[in-house]
């Protein structure tokens, strides 16, 4: 990946002025990623358009669709609200009170992001079958996604000038009124942005709901696919889902582009005075402990429990063999590496265009790539199945097609980090290096790479993690006979063979947690990871 970065910078000499037109080759390379993202949307719409209007109306306005819509939207609303409350409360306690062991809690509160939601789902389902309803789904997605609120809100609290709160106090407001009148309004962009991300993730979640037997659009599309293959029914449902997702995505983008309560002025930042918890100390600590048990303890605990049980102890007995385990792990890691490589290859030209050149076309390409965040994995997979079955038969169920699906799904994730990394090495620095006598190779090697290299590595690593824990596209597109860790967990849990699923779940969680931990340690930014995880849910 790092070598690729150098290649790309070679294409555009660093002395390029901002107004200069980008090289055609670079533009074409950037366009590939954007077009790939559009592909599943176009295929789905084309497929849906084949249904004539009356039939479409009949298919869309049936009670089932109404029920799915109610289920999905009610869950989105409830889990978003629950995540907002839990996430904001946790952020405030950690950033603004004298909570003991704050640093440790801050890490524990972010950890659930590195546990795939369908593993959390597996854990709860194997604990009690009673959780297979709305409340169970709410519990699982809230515990999986509340860090998406916690992280931006905590960052906003850290970035907020403490003088604002103090001024409010000096003007006669108590701590609680100050929070409502001053702190909360400042948190609004972070909070709303986080809530939209949670909503988007719940909309596209498949694995967790499938294991919980909670019916949403994604699970229904999968069911339709299983019965009617890639028929028009599935495409119509997928169109509705895409519309919902894109609505949330645009709302989020608008929010980010719009009002931003930055600090007015700049200067030394003082840390805020922490509110004493006083008598609330013990209840708050108990709350954090309960949160940790529910979001980390149960998933890890249940995996550990089933690991120690013989296969026969589960509802449907099944056993795991070492060769199976090794095979699935190798497959997962291999796909992870291949997915990361292709995704980075697509993201680099786009990132380079976006940071080094201006122009309408570039903006369009970049925004198109980000659209992938609003296209659920199930839709991408279904579209690629449709396309290959009808037009590109040899690619159907090939490993290459699966890797392309990963690249489509995780292009936005990679692009965010690649962009941030390339911005690190600004053109001014490159020009300074040129003026000091370095050629473009020297600039790439001694300036761009040291500055952007770590960020690019982080981007690749995040895609790798996301691919390893991806379920939906893998399930639909993996070549026959290919078993990955994710598909194995899913298959065994679907048949209630919890003990058999445990080793795969354990390996997957270890890889995800370990890689995330390394990333966070290396870059000290759980936030970067969080930015990524928002697209990994499928």
């Amino acid at each position: 990946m790092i070598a690729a970065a150098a290649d790309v910078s070679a294409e555009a000499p660093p002395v390029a002025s901002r107004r200069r037109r980008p090289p055609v080759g670079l533009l074409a390379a950037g366009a590939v990623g954007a077009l790939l993202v559009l592909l599943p949307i176009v295929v789905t719409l084309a497929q849906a358009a084949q249904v004539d209007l009356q039939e479409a109306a009949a298919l869309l306005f049936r009670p089932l669709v109404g029920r799915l819509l109610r289920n999905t939207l009610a869950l989105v609303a409830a889990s978003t609200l629950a995540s907002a409350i839990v996430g904001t409360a946790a952020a405030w306690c950690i950033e603004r009170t004298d909570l003991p062991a704050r640093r440790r809690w801050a890490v524990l509160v972010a950890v659930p992001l590195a546990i795939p939601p369908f593993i959390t789902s597996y854990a709860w389902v194997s604990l009690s079958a009673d959780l297979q309803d709305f409340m169970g789904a709410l519990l699982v997605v809230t515990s999986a996604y509340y860090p998406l609120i916690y992280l931006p809100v905590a960052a906003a609290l850290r970035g907020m000038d403490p003088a604002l709160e103090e001024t409010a106090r000096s003007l006669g407001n108590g701590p609680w009124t100050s929070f409502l009148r001053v702190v909360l309004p400042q948190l609004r962009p972070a909070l709303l942005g986080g809530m939209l991300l949670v909503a988007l993730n719940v909309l596209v979640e498949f694995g967790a709901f499938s294991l919980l037997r909670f019916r949403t659009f994604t699970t229904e599309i999968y069911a339709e696919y299983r019965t009617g293959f890639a028929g028009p029914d599935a495409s119509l449902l997928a169109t509705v889902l895409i519309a919902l997702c894109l609505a949330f995505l645009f709302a989020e983008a608008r929010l980010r582009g719009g009002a931003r309560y930055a600090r007015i002025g700049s200067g030394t930042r003082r840390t805020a005075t922490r509110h004493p918890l006083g008598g609330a100390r013990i209840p708050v600590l108990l709350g954090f402990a309960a949160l940790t048990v529910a979001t980390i303890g149960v998933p890890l605990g249940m995996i550990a429990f089933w690991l120690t049980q013989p296969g026969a102890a589960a509802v449907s007995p099944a056993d795991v063999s070492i060769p199976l385990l090794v095979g699935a792990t190798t497959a997962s890691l291999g796909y992870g590496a291949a997915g990361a490589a292709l995704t980075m290859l697509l993201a680099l030209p786009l990132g380079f265009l976006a940071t080094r050149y201006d122009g309408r076309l570039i903006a369009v390409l970049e925004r198109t790539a980000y659209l992938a965040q609003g296209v659920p994995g199930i839709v991408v997979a279904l579209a690629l199945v449709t396309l290959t079955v009808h037009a590109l038969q040899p690619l159907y169920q090939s490993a290459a097609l699966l890797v392309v699906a990963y690249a489509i799904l995780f292009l936005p994730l990679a692009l965010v980090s690649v962009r941030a990394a390339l911005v690190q090495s600004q053109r001014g620095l490159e020009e300074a290096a040129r003026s000091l006598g370095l050629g473009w190779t020297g600039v790439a090697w001694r300036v761009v790479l040291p500055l952007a290299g770590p960020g690019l590595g982080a981007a690749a690593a995040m895609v790798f993690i996301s691919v390893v824990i991806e379920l939906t596209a893998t399930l639909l597109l993996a070549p026959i006979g290919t078993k990955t860790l994710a598909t194995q967990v899913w298959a065994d849990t679907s048949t209630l063979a919890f003990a058999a699923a445990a080793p795969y779940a354990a390996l997957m969680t270890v890889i995800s947690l370990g890689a995330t931990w390394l990333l966070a340690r290396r870059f000290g930014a759980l936030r970067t990871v969080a930015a990524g995880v928002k697209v990994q849910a499928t």
Partner: protein
Amino acid sequence: MTDVRIDGLTKAFGGRPVLRGVDLAVESGRLVAILGASGSGKTTLLRLLSGFERPDAGTIRTGGRMLSGPGVHVPPERRQIGYVAQEGALFPHLSVADNIVFGLPRRERRARHRVAELLELVGLPRFYAGRPPHELSGGEQQRVALARALAPNPGLVLLDEPFSSLDAALRSDTRAAVATALAAAGATALLVTHDQSEALSMGHQVAVLREGRLVQVASPETLYRRPVDAALAQFIGEAVLLPGVAGAGRVTCALGDLPLAPGMPRGAVEVLVRPEQLRLDRAGTGVRARVCDLTFYGHDSQVRLSLAGGGPAVELIARVHGQSEFRPGETVMVAVDGEVVAYPRTAPVPAAPQSRQPALVIATPEHSR
């Protein structure tokens, strides 16, 4: 109108003492500048007054009411002390008018009570009321912050380095507007600053804080002319310090026999001469000195001199008006205007005179002809 009384105020952070027994009394309606280098504890003093921190010991009273003391801690929102933060801390989600009425009861907030009056008080046009804070310049933000602090009619206003983030041109205007508004409102004010000229020009009184202790509380003139020790003299402004021997009303040093201010010690002393007290002349009386170099500032120039004659080399700094034309290498006569101040000599006198670094020095080589 409120007077302030601080007794034995002590505060440590993590075992490191920041304030060590500060006593300060401020008369009602006065503006007192608290001057100190960074880390001297001045901001801590302000935060204790406003109630954001609790003192370890000592008491704070305003208008006879105990705010902090043994077993007493009035929370910030019930102190009725206005607070203007370093960069104003205007609420970014509220308009100028909503910022100003923020601390008023709900009914008065709705009625935009006194917004126009307060804007006028701080010297801003009325149509600013509807603007969002980020459209204001730094100086305007500070004025709105002051208007907001004054709106609930506090008896005491605290200003935490309110001008430090402004550029030089804005600073003097904003200082003047703030001083006028505070005087018009009749509020007692404490202004924390690390800027000597700001403290001297704005404060009715200046309290100098050094390592958590108040070393001198005096009028600006007294502070500048008769600082309590040599270190303070150097902190308050440029100072030339020379060893000397003091007798009755006179002191003898490298600059000759000089008149001494009343009440000065006798014997071995350090003599304080301000650079602007030195008069340079090509002819006339005084001590001979050679011009080492000259730094031109426009309104005045700083001249580094080295005293001719035997013994160890003595360096001086003089301030002369911008029109004077002395050249490096030239010999001039140095005379002293007015009385000088002396301190008992305990430690060796610093070898070179201390001065603040000029923003830009265009040095002329000493040996150029």
